[in-house]
């Protein structure tokens, strides 16, 4: 059980942000991902599949340039743009479209970017070098490719002693030591006769001990004294590529073949190409799949999985997943189509088959169908959290969002009503994508597995997202220290009465005389006794009574609100005005005298109306208000201003009893 605990601990450690899903680059193709860690940041150097332009083979690989992507959490990837393009390569064909799998390593503060390209002269591939001062370049291109290296898929391993080795693919997998300049092979080249009757100079040597069958894309790394040579390998006749590996005690072998890291892609995507890297203590494998191009496997996308080692150094086989690695924050979009598990009959499809980069959705065909998604960090959710779901259905149905399992505790029940005859408004939203929001009935803690179960007719799910409501109010303890008005003078600390429901359909009834009658009653209400009062600090300059009513009222709309606060001044402050804005009508009393009436259908406008010039007395002053509203988001903002309209802030607001 130890490894399991270890993994769990790791996950919790990473809880903060990692929620990569596969594929990781979602706005373009990104094949052959070589991941490197420089300065605690992961850089991915993929090859960049593009749709073939006119005149190029339409059904073949087509790459014209390289981008580099980086992330410090494996989640949020920054595209640093093009670092090398084919027309910049001094020795390369400007229209070769052969910028296949690259690599990039750091040595002595310089970054060496290795890439294959079709040379202007001759046939096949050569491997070039570009040198930069940063992982993202700019890179300066060497005038010539590396002499003696005819092939593709360069990979460089820098050993603990600083020696660098280049591996590439060209009639099998070859390897050679590099000179300290990183741009030339260390050993002398051999002259070999070509079938055409000429000669070529060839460097390096075939890697020995590897199995029969097509191999390419070497990726070498070192771990605990073992050298690993990993590579795509076709193990069966007419098969497609697996990822396989061999181990050795020296960098250029001889190699001891160990087996498979990842089996063939189930959909017969012919290629796979990978890299293996350790980041923040965990090893990851980066590889590719034709996620966004299911009809054509020459347009591929990078993915990540965790990878583990046995105690003897051998590698545990990895299964490709949609879910990928890391923890998904509950407040980010949870693409459940990147599922961890799916019930029988459930399926995936593109949201827009003409635009695959828009992603997928999950179809749950009926009652009992489900999809699960692991490692969702819900610790960021508060008690008022809710869930937003993007859904589509052809008939009214229901979903449950559960914790842990198909029969797990329900966090939210989501009625999906696509047809209704509500009042005067007929609703027919069959077959339309809808975004629904529902409060949570239970808010779990920690990292959970999310399970969405269909409780009725078929439903499609694009994504889920949990949200916290903004912090509208913070409770204020009776022993709390005195507060100050905020920077702009707004008074945020109030003792508010639970609202009195009113039957108000239109705010045009708020005439001065009607209000004075209504507010006269309000002034008489005791601030203690039967009706409940709450002492609160508003989260913003305006006091959002609407949300106070949502939480503590009988109804959200149509309420009479009352509140009071205390202004404690060290001395008399003369010539100030009370400045208020309210939605809807409000009245303001300072030391039990009416100083301001905002009548009519009001909106909360800063400094909408002000009182006559007043004196804030030395010591305690009582400020009271009553506010009435029908429809509308009830709120107010109030402050004291001076003769010039500038905020008055030199007083305090003690805790209110």
């Amino acid at each position, binding site marked *: 059980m130890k490894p399991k605990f270890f993994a769990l601990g790791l996950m919790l450690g990473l809880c903060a942000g990692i929620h990569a899903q596969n594929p990781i680059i979602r706005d373009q193709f990104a094949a052959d991902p070589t991941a490197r860690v420089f300065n605690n940041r992961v850089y991915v150097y993929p090859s960049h599949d593009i749709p073939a332009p006119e005149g190029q083979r339409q059904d073949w690989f087509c790459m014209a340039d390289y981008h580099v992507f980086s992330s410090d959490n494996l989640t949020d990837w920054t595209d640093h743009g093009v670092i090398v393009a084919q027309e910049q390569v001094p020795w390369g064909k400007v229209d070769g479209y052969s910028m296949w799998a690259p690599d990039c390593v750091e040595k002595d503060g310089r970054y060496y970017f290795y890439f294959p390209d079709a040379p202007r002269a001759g046939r096949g591939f050569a491997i070039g070098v570009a040198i930069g001062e940063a992982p993202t370049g700019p890179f300066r291109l060497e005038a010539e490719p590396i002499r003696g290296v005819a092939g593709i898929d360069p990979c460089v391993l820098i050993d603990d002693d600083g020696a660098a080795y280049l591996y590439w693919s060209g009639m099998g997998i070859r390897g050679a030591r590099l000179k300290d300049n990183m741009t030339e092979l260390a050993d002398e080249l051999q002259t070999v006769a070509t079938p055409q009757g000429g000669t070529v100079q060839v460097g390096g040597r075939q890697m020995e001990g590897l199995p029969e069958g097509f191999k390419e894309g070497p990726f070498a790394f070192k771990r605990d004294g073992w050298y690993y040579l990993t590579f795509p390998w076709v193990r069966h006749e007419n098969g497609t590529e697996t990822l396989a590996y061999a181990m050795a005690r020296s960098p250029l072998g001889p190699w001891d073949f160990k087996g498979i890291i990842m089996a063939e892609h189930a959909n017969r995507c012919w290629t796979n190409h990978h890299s293996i890297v350790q980041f923040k203590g965990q090893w990851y494998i980066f590889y590719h799949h034709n996620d966004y191009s299911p009809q054509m496997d020459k347009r591929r996308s990078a993915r990540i999985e965790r990878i583990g080692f046995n105690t003897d150094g051998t590698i545990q086989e990895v299964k490709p997943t949609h879910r990928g690695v890391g923890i998904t924050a509950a407040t980010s979009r949870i693409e459940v189509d990147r599922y961890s598990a799916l019930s029988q009959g459930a399926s995936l499809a593109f949201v827009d088959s003409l635009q695959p980069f828009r992603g997928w959705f999950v179809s749950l065909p009926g009652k009992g169908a489900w999809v699960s998604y692991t490692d969702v960090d819900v610790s960021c959710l508060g008690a008022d959290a809710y869930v937003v779901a993007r859904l589509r259905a052809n008939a009214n149905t229901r979903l449950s969002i559960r914790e842990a399992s198909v029969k797990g505790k329900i966090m939210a029940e989501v009625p999906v009503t696509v047809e209704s005859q509500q009042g005067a408004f007929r609703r027919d939203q069959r077959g339309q994508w809808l*975004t629904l929001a529902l409060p949570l009935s239970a808010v779990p803690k920690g990292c959970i597995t999310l399970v969405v179960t269909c409780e009725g007719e078929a439903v499609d799910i694009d994504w889920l997202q949990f949200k916290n409501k903004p912090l509208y109010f913070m409770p204020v303890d009776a022993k709390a220290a005195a507060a100050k008005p905020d920077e702009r003078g707004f008074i945020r600390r109030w003792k508010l009465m639970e609202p009195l429901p009113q039957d108000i359909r239109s705010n045009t009834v708020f005439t001065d005389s009607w209000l004075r009658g209504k507010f006269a009653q309000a002034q008489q209400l005791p601030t203690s006794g039967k009706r409940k009062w709450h002492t609160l600090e508003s989260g913003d300059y305006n006091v959002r009574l609407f949300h106070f009513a949502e939480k503590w009222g009988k109804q959200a709309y149509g309420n009479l609100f009352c509140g009071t606060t205390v202004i404690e001044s060290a001395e008399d402050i003369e010539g100030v005005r009370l400045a208020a804005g309210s939605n809807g009508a409000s009245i303001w009393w300072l030391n039990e005298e009416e100083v301001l009436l905002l009548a009519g259908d009001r909106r909360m406008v800063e400094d909408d109306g002000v009182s006559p010039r007043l004196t804030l007395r030395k010591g305690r002053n009582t400020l009271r208000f009553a506010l009435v509203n029908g429809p509308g*988001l009830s709120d107010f903002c109030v402050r004291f201003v001076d003769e010039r309209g500038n905020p008055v802030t030199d007083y305090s607001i003690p805790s209110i009893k």
Partner: protein
Amino acid sequence: MKTSRYFLIALCMQALSAEAQIGQPYIHDPSTLAECDGKYYTFGTGGGGLISDDGWAWHGGAERPGGGAAPDVLKIGDRYLIIYGATGGGLGGGHNGRILTMWNRSLDPRSPDFHFTQPVEVCASDGLEDQDAIDPGLLLDPTTGRLWASYGTYFGSIRLIELDPTTGERVRGNVEKDIAIDCEATDLIYRDGWYYLLGTHGTCCDGVNSTYNIVVGRSRSVEGPYLDNVGRDMLHGGGRMVIAAGGRMCGPGHFGRTVIDEGVEVMSCHFEADFDRSGRSVLGIRPLLWRNGWPVAGERFRGGTFEIASERRGYALELAVDFVRIQQERERFWNMDLSKPLKAIPDQSLEEVIGAWPKGEIAVRCGDYMFRPHQLWTLTPLDERGGYLSNPYFKIVIAGTDRALAATADLELTTTPSFTGADEQLWRVEQLTDGTFRLMPKRIPGQQEPNTRYVLYSAADSTPTLAEYDFSSDNSKWTFRDK
């Protein structure tokens, strides 16, 4: 009493016709006016919209699928982008709003090109947040080519998002930004280094008691902050009035700006209630003026009797007839008898001078304004002769006569002894953004196309002519001054 009652009725009729666009301009939440193949279109809440051949007479018939509330339309390249809220802003349920965009190559339902693309959702409100995703307005930033939309209602904030001007879709990774509260039916415009956010304040949908009005804030950045004229952020409820109730119409809302020509702009809106049309909600189009960098709705020009003063010199447009001296008993100012009672000297009357005027055509010129009959012009709107975005055409006659100002084939001016209704006697009167006016004959005799180039123009201080409109020159501009 009979005559005066008729007179009153006539006055009302005139008021009715001069107050708003004619026809059946009934609409709520009109989109910014769009032009397609020589016709104007605007779309409203619900499904349909209005069409006009000339901008003055409007009728139903525009088509927009998707229902919902408050669309906006913007021509980008050779296509029209339509953005609309698919929901009803709390009317049809909650505040679970959705905003969609779609394209069409034409706005004319009878055009073979008329075909809406599949709508694409660009933003939504989740129903539990303080926001309602309806009421979108579009801005294609002329300085950057970037496309923005503002949306939202009183239910929470007004938000800004960025769209891709080639697809109409949301820009990938774009995050909504709150830019205002306490308004709805917003629109963004750009002018002269400033971005303006126009929002509708007050209450809608309460007929003649609707207090809807349009306010504005401005910013150097499209992303705000939008401040009003006293520096108050629209995020705190700020806003400076652009247009409120007036002219027997109340509740202007849903601003749209249309630039007709350099210095010639109008704003479109609806009025919640037209007091002369059963309190119905109608399309309104007003001149849009710019004062110290702030947009203000101009008054509708209703006609009347005025001096027509050149902006060039301040001289008055007048008939080229003999100046007739008014006889006066003179007192030397150094020898006045202060005990004599004062008496009023009557204006020179038309009857005193008209007999001496030639009977045929009389030329016009400009001269010192002396409030004499040959300098007083009566402008009368002519509903039945069509119009343009802000008004019907006017006839311009010497007050008390039928002698009409007319354009000539050689791009000069004359007056004809009587108004015949010919196109060269019909005048388009438009208030410019600086408050002055341009006057443009409907047609130049001998020219096939309606005239959109030549305006009443000061060739010299004393010499009016017709010449190409040029906003940068005071020669193109005139003001109407009360007698």
